[in-house]
């Protein structure tokens, strides 16, 4: 059965002293990658464990395609999960790790052989080369592929990933993110990806759920949430923002503007223009990160270099933006 929609209805998980998840209502659409994004302690990993059945909610209901699974033990939920520490079985070979879920299901050994082989190929791990190795003989990225293969080979209805790439180098992480998305698209499996890294969330998600203090703060497609942050938490945690007191612009409330929306020397393209002095310049290859002192506050801006010119600290510049790029926040 593919295409499982996961729904959480007013789910709470209270521990003796903390409320890890506190009244969570959430839909994870079938066949999508949905990312739970938030700072550590926001309840995202607990939410994942509740979906997996490793934790039982204090209150509320968990539904897979309208079927109530709240009381179902983990081994009966047909879920694939990749843990933060991967949790590969250290005493088993790569083959035995991947075959584990099939063996406990009493799948015939000949079928296990072909399914494990196919799955290792799907995650780009040469079965002939790696089948008989132990996890300790693999690199971090290869261990990651084994963990993914082990989770997927049982043909789960739902794939859960708990910060799986947190310990990897930037480049390997980028490649594995792309591969994960390719595999997910091919298998059309409902996937929940937990991370505290906004870049991972933006790169991989069909839907982003931003969490804080055990609650959902905002959800939606990654670009829409980025363009329309609902409050200061989203505006500053999910991408960066300049927060400006509206009174300085004659607006009630707090105004957020993304650094890349602020133009350097806009010359007529902007609705609002200020004179400022460059305080700091960080060179980042294709872009420059600038801090510009304007009217008593500092603006962060990202400037794409189109010619060789490079502002220096102390330079007098003009900065400006369009009114439509400003977002007035709820609080």
């Amino acid at each position: 059965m593919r295409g499982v929609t996961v729904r959480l209805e007013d789910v709470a998980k209270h521990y003796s002293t903390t409320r890890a998840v506190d009244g969570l209502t959430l839909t994870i659409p079938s066949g999508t990658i949905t990312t739970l994004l938030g700072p550590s302690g926001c309840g995202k990993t607990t939410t994942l464990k509740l979906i997996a059945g490793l934790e039982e909610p204090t209150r509320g209901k968990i539904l897979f395609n309208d079927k109530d699974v709240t009381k179902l033990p983990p081994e009966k939920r047909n879920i694939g999960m990749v843990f933060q520490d991967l949790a590969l079985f250290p005493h088993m070979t790569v083959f035995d790790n991947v075959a584990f879920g099939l063996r406990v299901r009493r799948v015939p050994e000949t079928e296990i052989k072909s399914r494990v082989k196919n799955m290792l190929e799907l995650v780009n791990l040469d079965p002939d080369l790696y089948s008989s190795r132990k996890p300790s003989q693999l690199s971090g990225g290869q261990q990651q592929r084994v963990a993914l293969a082990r989770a997927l080979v049982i043909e789960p209805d739902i794939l859960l990933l708990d910060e799986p790439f947190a310990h990897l180098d930037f480049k390997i992480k980028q490649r594995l993110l792309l591969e994960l998305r390719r595999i997910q698209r091919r298998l059309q499996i409902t996937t929940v990806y937990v991370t505290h890294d906004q870049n991972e969330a933006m790169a991989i998600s069909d839907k982003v759920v931003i969490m804080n203090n055990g609650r959902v703060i905002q959800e939606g497609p990654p670009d829409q949430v980025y363009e329309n942050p609902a409050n200061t938490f989203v505006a500053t945690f999910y991408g960066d923002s300049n927060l400006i007191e509206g009174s300085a612009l004659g607006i009630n409330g707090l105004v957020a503007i993304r650094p890349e929306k602020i133009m350097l020397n806009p010359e007529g393209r902007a609705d609002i223009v200020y004179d400022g002095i460059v305080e700091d310049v960080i060179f980042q290859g294709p872009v420059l990160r600038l801090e510009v002192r304007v009217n008593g506050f500092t603006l962060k801006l990202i400037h794409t270099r189109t010619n060789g010119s490079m502002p220096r600290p102390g330079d007098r510049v003009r900065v400006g933006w369009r009114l439509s790029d400003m977002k007035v926040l709820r609080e």
Partner: protein
Amino acid sequence: MSKLHLAALPLILFLLAFFYVPLAVLAYYSIVEEDGSYGLSNYLELLQDPAYLRVILYSIVIAGQTTIATLLLSLPAAYYIAVHSRGLEKAALLVAMITPFWIDFLLRALAIKNLMYLLDIREGYTSMMAGMIYDYLPYMFLPVYASLAGIRGSLLQAARILGATPIHVATKIILPLALPGIVAGSILVFLMSMTEYVIPALLGGTQGFTVGTLIYYLFLSGDKWGQGSALTLIITLSLLIATIIISRRRTTS
């Protein structure tokens, strides 16, 4: 070469003086025959006399039972403490496991004797086994606990999510990972209980005639130093060879 080998010298000298030189003396006594000439008749007498062989066999059975009993007691407790308890509970349970062994083992053997008397159980098999198990428990518990302490909770959760029942988790994850500790603990307990003297002598009564008490008898009551030496060497050498074989197996597999 560094001069670090000097650091090991005091211990080597100590063991030479109190173990290896006496062992060599034993080896010498074992080949001196009753008439003062040299030969192997002490060994031949031992190995041809069914009474001696029966004592050796009985000691193997007692040591085996002690090993199995300490393992069956240690494994579930070590598993619970290592994997499922944490914080203060874990610390308290560990201390509780080890505290009894701060008391001298001779005193504990005498205490067991008196406790058994209260239950109206005299010296014999039951008292002796109670004493053996009590005495050798930490030598099994600690290695088994150490091997289980490395198991992360996520391994067990991963197995459950993959569809494993609790029995699968126990047989395919926990036992294989605990195996090095089980083997180390079993070797330790078997070897030490095989040659145990005090517990069978104090608590065994008529059932206490093991290799340990037999060697004592040959030397101090029977005045048969030649046979006592031969028996000591046979037991020491066969245990040494068995240990080498088992640890070779472990490292090559």
